[in-house]
């Protein structure tokens, strides 16, 4: 149908003024919780009538109602589409969360993961009916091993932290196998929280390694703390300051000399993929976040996948399942027997994050060896460009030398302005960007960690840098309100997290 059938094109009659108090929000809709939309008897599905009753379960069935609302399909779709528009996303603008590698998530990955041959496959079907799935896992393993320069990989860990645990348990098993019970793991102060947490959960005492003024592992301190009690040294490289551990070869030499294993947190692998192989650096175990380096989507918090590449010394202790092949095709070793006799156990049910394997392999094959190398180079180039553009106004935590995939700033430049790192982050929201990572790593005061990734165009990085510089000028000019009140233009103003923690309301309750 047609608007304006009167035929006269229209024209604004009055000069635009500020909005009078209009209750609505234009396209952005307030949205209640499903529990408040009142669909207590509704459903958005149509199901046939059951052919049998549940009389055989007398006494076992629920009497009281569950208390779950339902909505018709149109209402459900609208509810979640409305909610979605309250999110920032890579697809909307730069998302420079340091250490998170928020890169473009290709839609081809999603399409491939949805092929019935992958998505509609049960983990316990006879292996004769899943040869393609096992071949894919084998191929993914081949890529990961080749890119890392390491001989083995355990695919099953479900995220980075899970991979860390897998790595440390492999090390623990290797040590036990040689009757060498060691009790501590050395972790740099700059490490991501999951490192010490994982070490503790793996049953180790965590001892911190100091950091040098140039943001690297303090070799002297490391040497001093290494000893017969040390099971592993857990170093992130490139590290969480966005710097490459220059002394990495020395770190691994010292570590091995002390009979310990070198665990590398590979969350930042994106900076070196295709250019440097951890295997060449003496690494014994490293997890790879497929949801970072290999573009599987973060999905608002997961799922991810954290395969762990392993050195020859550790390979035998990797957990089940293993994919092995012979003339007859691929097989799954699901128990600690045969090739996996020394496996330390099992990380989870079934075989890991197949959906992420498909996405990651799709991405790897798309980039190829040449493209992946370019990924690292562009990621590092973008980060150094940000560092160069902002260093005039902001204070880089480690000014000397290049950074790798992320640029780290401290809050010295805010001194005396009354504006904090948090305020800058919130003000960036008004500028249309997701804030950088803030207050991490802990070793840097008021840290601002900016990781553009290789999939940001120069134009967008410039837009971002311009906004940061505008804010820097505003802060120095004393325009504090712009920061303290920020965000002004987000779906919500600044949220009260303190109140949330003081008396937690963790679920909706009637009335």
């Amino acid at each position, binding site marked *: 149908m047609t608007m304006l059938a009167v035929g006269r094109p229209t024209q604004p009659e009055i000069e635009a003024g500020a909005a009078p108090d209009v209750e609505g929000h234009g396209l952005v809709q307030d949205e209640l919780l499903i529990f408040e939309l009142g669909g207590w008897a509704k459903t958005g599905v149509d199901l046939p009538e059951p*052919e049998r009753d549940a009389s055989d379960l007398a006494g076992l069935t629920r009497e009281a109602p569950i208390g779950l609302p339902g909505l018709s399909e149109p209402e459900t779709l609208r509810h979640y589409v409305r909610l979605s528009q309250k999110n920032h996303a890579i697809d909307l603008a730069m998302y420079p969360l340091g250490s998170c590698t928020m890169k473009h998530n290709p839609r081809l990955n999603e399409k491939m993961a949805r092929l019935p041959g992958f998505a509609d496959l049960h983990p316990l079907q006879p292996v004769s009916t899943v040869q393609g799935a096992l071949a894919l896992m084998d191929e993914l393993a081949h890529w990961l091993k080749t890119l890392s320069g390491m001989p083995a990989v355990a695919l099953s860990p479900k995220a980075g932290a899970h991979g860390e645990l897998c790595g440390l348990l492999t090390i623990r098993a290797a040590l036990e196998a040689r009757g060498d019970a060691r009790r501590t793991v050395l972790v740099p102060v700059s490490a991501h929280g999951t490192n010490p947490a994982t070490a503790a959960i793996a*049953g180790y005492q965590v001892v911190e390694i100091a950091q040098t003024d140039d943001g690297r592992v303090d070799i002297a301190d490391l040497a001093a703390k290494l000893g017969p009690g040390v099971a592993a040294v857990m170093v992130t490289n490139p590290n969480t300051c966005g710097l490459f551990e220059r002394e990495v070869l020395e770190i691994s030499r010292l570590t091995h000399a002390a009979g310990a294993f070198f665990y590398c947190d590979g969350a930042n692998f994106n900076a*070196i993929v295709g*250019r440097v192989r951890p295997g060449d650096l003496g690494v014994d175990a490293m997890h790879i976040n497929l949801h970072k380096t290999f573009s599987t989507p*973060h999905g*608002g*918090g997961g799922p991810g996948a954290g395969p762990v590449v392993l050195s020859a010394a550790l390979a035998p202790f990797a957990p089940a399942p293993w994919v092995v092949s012979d003339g007859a095709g691929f097989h799954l070793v699901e128990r600690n027997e045969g090739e996996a006799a020394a496996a330390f156990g099992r990380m989870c049910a079934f075989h890991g994050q197949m959906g992420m394997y498909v996405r990651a392999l799709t991405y790897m094959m798309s980039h190829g060896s040449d493209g992946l190398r370019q990924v690292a180079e562009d990621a590092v180039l973008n980060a150094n460009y940000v560092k160069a553009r902002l260093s005039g106004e902001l204070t880089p935590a480690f000014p000397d030398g290049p950074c790798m995939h992320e640029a780290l700033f401290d809050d010295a430049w805010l001194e005396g302005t009354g504006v904090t790192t948090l305020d800058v982050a919130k003000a960036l929201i008004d500028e249309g960007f997701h804030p950088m990572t803030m207050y991490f790593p802990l070793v840097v005061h008021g840290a601002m960690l900016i990781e553009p990734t290789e999939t940001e165009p120069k134009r967008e990085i410039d837009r971002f840098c311009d906004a940061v510089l505008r804010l820097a000028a505003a802060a120095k000019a004393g325009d504090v309100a712009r920061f303290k009140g920020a965000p002004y233009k987000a779906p919500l103003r600044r949220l009260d997290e303190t109140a949330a923690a003081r008396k937690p309301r963790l679920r909706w309750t009637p009335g």
Partner: protein
Amino acid sequence: MRYLPLTPEDRAEMLTIIGAPSIDALFADVPPEAHLGGPVDLPPHQGELEVERALGRLAARNRPAGAGPFFCGAGAYRHHVPASVDHIIQRSEFLTSYTPYQPEIAQGTLQALFEFQTQVAALTGLPVANASLYDGSTACAEAVMMAARVTKRSKAVLSGGLHPHYAEAAWTLAHTAGVATQRLPAAIDAEAAVLDAIDADTACVVVQTPNVFGTVTDVSLIAEAAHAAGALVVVVTTEAVSYGLLKSPGEMGADIAVAEGQSIGNPLTFGGPYVGLFACREALTRQMPGRLCGETVDAEGKRGFVLTLSTREQHIRREKATSNICTNSGLCALAFTVHMTLLGEAGLTQLAKLSHARARLLREALAAVPGAEVLTSRFFNEFAVRLPKPAATVVNALAADGIIAGVPVSRLDPAAGMDDLLIVCATETTSHADIAEFAEALTEELAQ
């Protein structure tokens, strides 16, 4: 390359502004000997068409569950996922966002998580649920660790009806922390047996209902006894749809309920990614693993949601955290919530009853097969069948005829000495024709 926006001109200009002579100069910190001269030994980049064809060939070498009669369960379940669920989780704003650390621009994700937590709490009959863990098996392992923390005891009793993979994952995590896991002998109707294993050092009993053999158990009495002995009760469920029909863990006295949420909203995908559900009593909240989303207000007093109680988590508490989990199963949790919203209580109940009905039809058909004996008496939508020959042999034979007959117990637990047991499952996707074809083929196979 299509994913890389920088042009050669961009790169040159940026290097100039950086003041670096070349890209290599930016990698100066890498030890020379560790520099790769050129690309590693892997194929070069390929176009979308070529990659799509290569992956398509791999997919074609698998037999999708939906391609014919299919009866696998045992921890992963084939249910129909409405098209609108997949549409929502593919929305850019949900798919390509990170953990909602900046709540002002993550209310979409946060409100959905708050709905998720409320739904999980309602389904499990417990007041507090977290924002998801990796899957049911890791949730189970975390529950054991949490029980040990809470009770300061160092033994967990695992029912013989607990999914073997769950038991192994729990053992793997627990034993490193010095928590012993006493795994009882596998048995069809196994849950009650945990009572005899409870002692003064028992942190928790872990029971599963419906258990891996399909047996449904009212754990109320077990819970009473366990509580009397100062132990916590962890109730595991692998088929979340069963919540629609059966008594909830909370109703039966569970302190912690963990479940695999896959069967609501998530495809099979060969075992992952799935979504772990984790709920517990109010008093245990601050010992929970994983993220929690809570309600609050913004500067204008408008309701909003944030991640809260993070002082339990690794990024704040580091080595003292309740768990090392960081990335969880956000998008799978969203799929769960969208599907759960579509179902509603009416739809979930109907879905549960329908799955149960189809399982009863399957039982009737298999019970009539000469040589086959149905062992599970109280089941929801899966049960164990004893066969006159090794179940694995039968499954392979039927697979050749295009029928995926179920899961041989020997595949999950060879040590159980139950090689002749087959676990079969039915859901709303199981048609009458599927059942008839299966029964016929099984009759033939057993006749040989």
